[in-house]
């Protein structure tokens, strides 16, 4: 029983990791109807910026010398470094939209998606060149010592899992408010639905799109700071997470905020339980099994579990 409880906690812990990046993917999709495959790498860069700002400038760590020379007051307190990471993610998101995506607005097919793949590779290579392909310990936003957990029927529910889950809920609430209650949210929905019609009614489409990318970038930055203590910060950290987050976002519905969370946890539960209780699956086949679940769900609900099924007037 204790093992089952622990696996439940592990499933949630893994699922929340996937959900954090899935949420950023959903934000961009909701705001601009674009799939941003560079989302994870943008988040990775933001996390590195956070690490640099909170790390004393020592010869043993690449990148810190630069920070020490141009940014006053390093090392910053960890909370300030995380805020800076979130801000950096927003700036990166806005920058990518302004410099790359907006120029492809009229392009046909999957040009924008392809451009985000290029951005992913560019950022991955740059990250590796600047910060080297080595693992970096990244502090947790929540207390993360060996004994920092709630003991529940023999299982360990770590404070980091609880904290990340709680953070996700808070972010979801804020986003829900912004997207459903405010005029900004209305503008996001309008632009993602019909850019031309939005422009005709006076919405500044370019600015709204850029804001959507900035918002997603900020959430991505926060996501990277949340997952880095577990996945461990290195140039490919978010590449390893992205595939699971894509599955989570698609499963939950690419335009559903809550779907990102449910999708992530569903992927986590599927993976953990199948690997744990179906001997021939193991860790090798757990991801393909999660993909199979995604395909099954999409066959029944093409828009995902919580995605809106779009109806077009003909």
């Amino acid at each position, binding site marked *: 029983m204790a093992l089952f409880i622990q696996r439940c906690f*592990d499933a949630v812990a893994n699922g929340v990791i996937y959900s954090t990046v899935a949420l950023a993917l959903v934000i961009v999709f909701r705001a601009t109807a674009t799939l941003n495959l560079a989302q994870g790498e943008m988040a990775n860069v933001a996390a590195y910026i956070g690490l640099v700002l909170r790390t004393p400038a020592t010869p043993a760590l690449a990148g810190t010398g630069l920070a020490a020379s141009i940014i006053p007051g390093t090392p910053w307190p960890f909370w300030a470094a995380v805020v800076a990471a979130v801000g950096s993610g927003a700036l990166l998101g806005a920058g990518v939209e302004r410099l790359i995506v907006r120029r492809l607005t009229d392009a046909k097919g999957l040009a924008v998606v392809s451009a985000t793949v290029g951005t992913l590779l560019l950022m*991955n290579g740059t990250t590796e060149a600047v910060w*080297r392909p080595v693992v*970096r*310990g990244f502090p947790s936003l929540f207390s993360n010592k060996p004994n920092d957990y709630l003991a529940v029927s023999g299982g360990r529910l770590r404070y980091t899992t609880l904290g990340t889950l709680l953070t996700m809920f808070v972010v979801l609430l804020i986003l829900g408010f912004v997207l459903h209650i405010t005029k900004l949210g209305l503008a996001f929905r309008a632009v993602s639905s019909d850019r031309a019609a939005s422009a005709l009614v006076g919405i500044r489409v370019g600015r709204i799109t850029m804001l959507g990318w900035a918002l997603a970038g900020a959430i991505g930055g926060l996501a990277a700071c949340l997952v880095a203590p577990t996945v461990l910060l290195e140039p490919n950290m978010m590449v*390893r997470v992205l595939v699971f987050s894509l599955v989570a976002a698609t499963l939950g519905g690419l335009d559903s905020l809550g779907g990102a969370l449910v999708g992530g946890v569903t992927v986590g539960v599927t993976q953990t339980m199948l690997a744990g209780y179906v001997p021939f699956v*193991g860790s090798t*086949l757990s991801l393909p099994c999660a993909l199979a679940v995604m395909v099954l769900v999409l066959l029944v609900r093409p828009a995902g579990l919580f995605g809106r099924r779009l109806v077009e007037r003909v």
Partner: protein
Amino acid sequence: MRSQTSCRVTASLVAAAMALAACGSSGGDGGTASPENTVDKGVQSGVNDALNSTTTAAAAVTTAAAVATTVAAKPASIADWNALATKERAAVVKRITDNKWGLSADGKTITGPEGFSIDVSKCPAGWNNTQGITDTDIKIGNTISQSGTLAIYGQIAKGISTHLDVINAAGGIKGADGKSRKITYIAKDDGYDAARTIPLVDELVDSEKVFSVITLGSPNTMKTYDKLNVGCVPQVLSMTGHPAWGDPVKHPWTTGQQMAYNTEAVLWGAFIEKRAAELKGADGKITVAALVMNNDFGAAYNFGFKAWLSQSPLKDQVVYVNETIEPTAPTITDPMTTLTAKKPSVFIAMTAGTSCTQSITEAAQNGLKASAKYLFQPSVCKGASFVGKDKVGGDGSASDAWWVVGGGLKDAASPIYDADPWVQSARAELTAAGVDWKKDQTTLTGSIWGWSIEQVMSIASALPGGPTRANLIVALRAIDMTPPFLLEGAKFNMNGNKDAYLIEASEFAKYDFTKQGFIQVGDLIELSGKSSNCIWDQAKATCT
């Protein structure tokens, strides 16, 4: 709407494609193999002899100061080390020339010590014994993972090129023909993806026309060694400890350098046998848990350990459980939970790269570190690059008391070796070249390979006929030296068909987080010549 629909389809396809790529690692557990076939009786008896003649580990903890003192008592400066290398190279050259080993006068056979022989007539038409050699250059190629999840090992290339630049600046490698040649070193990034290694090796051999090839990684070397051997291209000093590189009869052109993974596995087993009494649970069983990377690398460890277990007197008492992980897995939480639930006395990480560090942090958090009596990192994760304080986070105590079968190499990035003359020299070379070894610690591993390349090329060049592929492979098969990067007492030798492994020595070491280094425990175990040759059966994943 069409855009949104296409995005949904794209997201699904991209996720599926990435998943397939992530799952596409070669090898696998291969659980149907017969482990009895892979046990190396020579290594096993050698380990037992060494451990039985050694003081108990607990009583023989070698302190950092003691290590430094011991090293300093040997060649006291890098000049002394270089003088020793010159002397030992001359001895190898003399042995080869005295025995008239090398390419026969009719050009049909290459001979070496202990029955080593290659039928050159079977090499492809147009095979060039001096490809990659000019009057001024020796061109060598290296496929290495400079990107991807194991990109950290790509820093080895920088360490190699830095050392070779120093050698080149000093005039290069002197040949028997009176010419001095500089080494041109070409490194190509394969991302640890064997599918990319294959065309890159072709490119190096067919387009760059290199003299010899070095490959990094077990799957990557495995996928190319048949073709290179058929083509009679030297594939030397491979950066992997898979036992398959000890096959001088069927794969004479391929050699490794580091201690074989199955030897490491036997040493884990010997460690368990020595401590059997304290490892037994209430049921009288000893549970050993292993986290195994799902590729040829992990499989070599896994089968090596199973081989030890199959003939161990403890085989009925040891319960061996293992879980596999994909090299690209973002977390290892699930398999670590499963293994921890087995309440193992001993945990062994048979992994590489980021998952080594993850195994340390996970074990600290899920209770395994507190419950298991002994935890082992693999030799490939011995360095501070994987276990240091800035990697595992916090005060670094998560790494404390982890053990390693270290493969006999000094951890040149560790402060424990600050006083060692070779370590100082390697660090200084890198620093002078603008490489910050503290940032890029794995470059120091490249200094090791740089030294080895320098030595084997020097020996081959000093042989009659100068630097030829035949001379290179004979030089390696007859080499016997004392490298400055090995712990005292470790040998660096091969002997034709009788001894096909360069390094067969290892220490047991325990991590001390206050010193940020592995501290040797007990004496070095030297197994030179003990390892049996290994004709690797890929289908059964075992030595025959």
